């Protein structure tokens, strides 16, 4: 069809590369998502304490990571972490090697980037709680922590689920930029394949399809969770 030649796909070497690349992409996306959600949770929790200096620092972190390109952040971590001292001496060769591999650097930068977005999403979720709800909880005699755990988090987490879906799909797509710092994920292996076969258009179309499938699956799964957790009056549970 359209003169596209996919005969290279039958080669087990290329199949292996594609599979390994896909698995690495998924691993990178899952790990960084998990860390990002953790950062977001703790960040939003810290923001509810309303400690002025902590809030100012968190805000700085969020704005810095939200308004600079993830690609440059990745390059920054990749090239500077080892320069400023994160190095170990390899016992086998005696050479000084960077402590963090390319994969680790990508993981660090993606987690921080996603974490900054998550903090913002969770904060706005907590902000959008109706005052009446927290006031009712307080008048029922809930302590601050119990109110947070039993009233605020259950409602706010449902409110910010759509935003979280956006962030996690975005993070999944951003993992493709890790190929620039030589992380062997899908786009990296795609480059290897078309350098071998010169079938650039075919490889890129296939990679696009793989990404669209994975991201669609992710957003479908998250929307299923959203619907399962919805309760009347909040979010989609009208």
């Amino acid at each position, binding site marked *: 069809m359209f003169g596209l030649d996919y005969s290279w796909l039958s080669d087990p070497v290329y199949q292996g590369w594609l599979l390994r690349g896909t698995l690495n992409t998924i691993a990178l996306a899952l790990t960084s998502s998990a860390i990002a959600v953790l950062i977001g949770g703790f960040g939003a929790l810290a923001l509810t304490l*309303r400690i*002025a*200096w902590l*809030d*100012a*620092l968190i*805000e*700085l972190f969020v*704005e*810095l990571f*939200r*308004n*600079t*390109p*993830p*690609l*440059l*952040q990745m*390059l*920054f971590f990749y*090239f*500077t972490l080892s*320069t*400023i001292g994160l190095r170990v001496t390899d016992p086998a060769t005696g050479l000084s090697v960077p402590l963090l591999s390319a994969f680790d650097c990508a993981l660090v930068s993606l987690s921080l980037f996603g974490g900054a977005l998550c903090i913002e999403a969770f904060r706005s979720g907590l902000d959008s709680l109706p005052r009446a709800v927290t006031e009712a909880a307080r008048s029922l005699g809930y302590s601050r922590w119990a109110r947070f755990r039993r009233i605020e988090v259950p409602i706010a987490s449902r409110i910010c689920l759509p935003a979280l879906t956006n962030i996690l*799909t975005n993070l999944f*797509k*951003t*993992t*493709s*930029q890790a*190929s*620039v710092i030589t992380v062997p994920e899908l*786009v990296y292996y*795609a480059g290897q394949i*078309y350098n071998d076969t010169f079938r*650039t*258009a075919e490889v*890129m*179309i296939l*990679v*696009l399809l793989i*990404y*669209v499938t994975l*991201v*669609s699956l992710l*957003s479908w799964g998250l929307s299923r969770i959203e619907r399962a957790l919805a309760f009347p009056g909040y979010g989609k549970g009208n």
Partner: protein
Amino acid sequence: MQWPLSYHEKKRLVQLGIVLTLAAWITADALSGGAAHWHRVWMRLPLLLTGSGDGWPLTGGFVLNIFLGLGSMALAAVLGTLLAFGMMAKSRLVRLPCFFIMNFLRNSPWIVLLFAMLYIIPFNVRLFGVSIAVPAFAKALIGLALPTGANFAEIIRGAVQSIHSGQWEAARALGYMPMAIYGRIILPQALRRMIPGWMNLYALLMIATSLATVTGIQDVVTTLNTLLSMENERVIVYFYITTLFLFFAYCYPIALLARRMEQSVKGDAL
């Protein structure tokens, strides 16, 4: 200021403190040998900004990123408007393909779309027997405009559908034609809600223009990478911080303004 300080006053103070600490750190660093590094960055700044050592002509660097962002946004506006109206069409035959295209573009990574455009768009296009070379810049423009257009369409659709259905009914009861309802009643109201979304999208696009380095155009990241191959390891940190700051200084005010406007639009729900 009164003595027990309010929360916001305390926060302002801490922010001031952070800025002062940064300034102090930079000064201390400059005094302890960093000045030479900063001087190197200062010397290369015109190159980073415009892609040429003298600062003129404006053929690359950060200025090229700005051009790319503006051009892609214009192209995305056309594409997005068409897609949005396609998605809101009554006919299923128009609506479903538009939904499919929108979801495809939104769910694919920007860098992969850029790569795909780089390789799928031919190097030469033959039009009426004239062969026109397609520059890498045009490919980057299209590659960035595709996902932006899909997001643009979603913003339009979201804003139009957030207009209360009573507006439609009232307009129909007054005898407006469907196109007139769109043009005179729905769109003027929806426009107010779209603008913050567009500004956010523009900030996002501006950040994404850094990806255009994969197409090989002389944008700020490409310039930076060529530059750094001639520099020693320690100066690299300073160059990266400067480039990150360029993006921050351009995108943060836009994002901030968008958030302010979002707050002001929030009230008119009906």
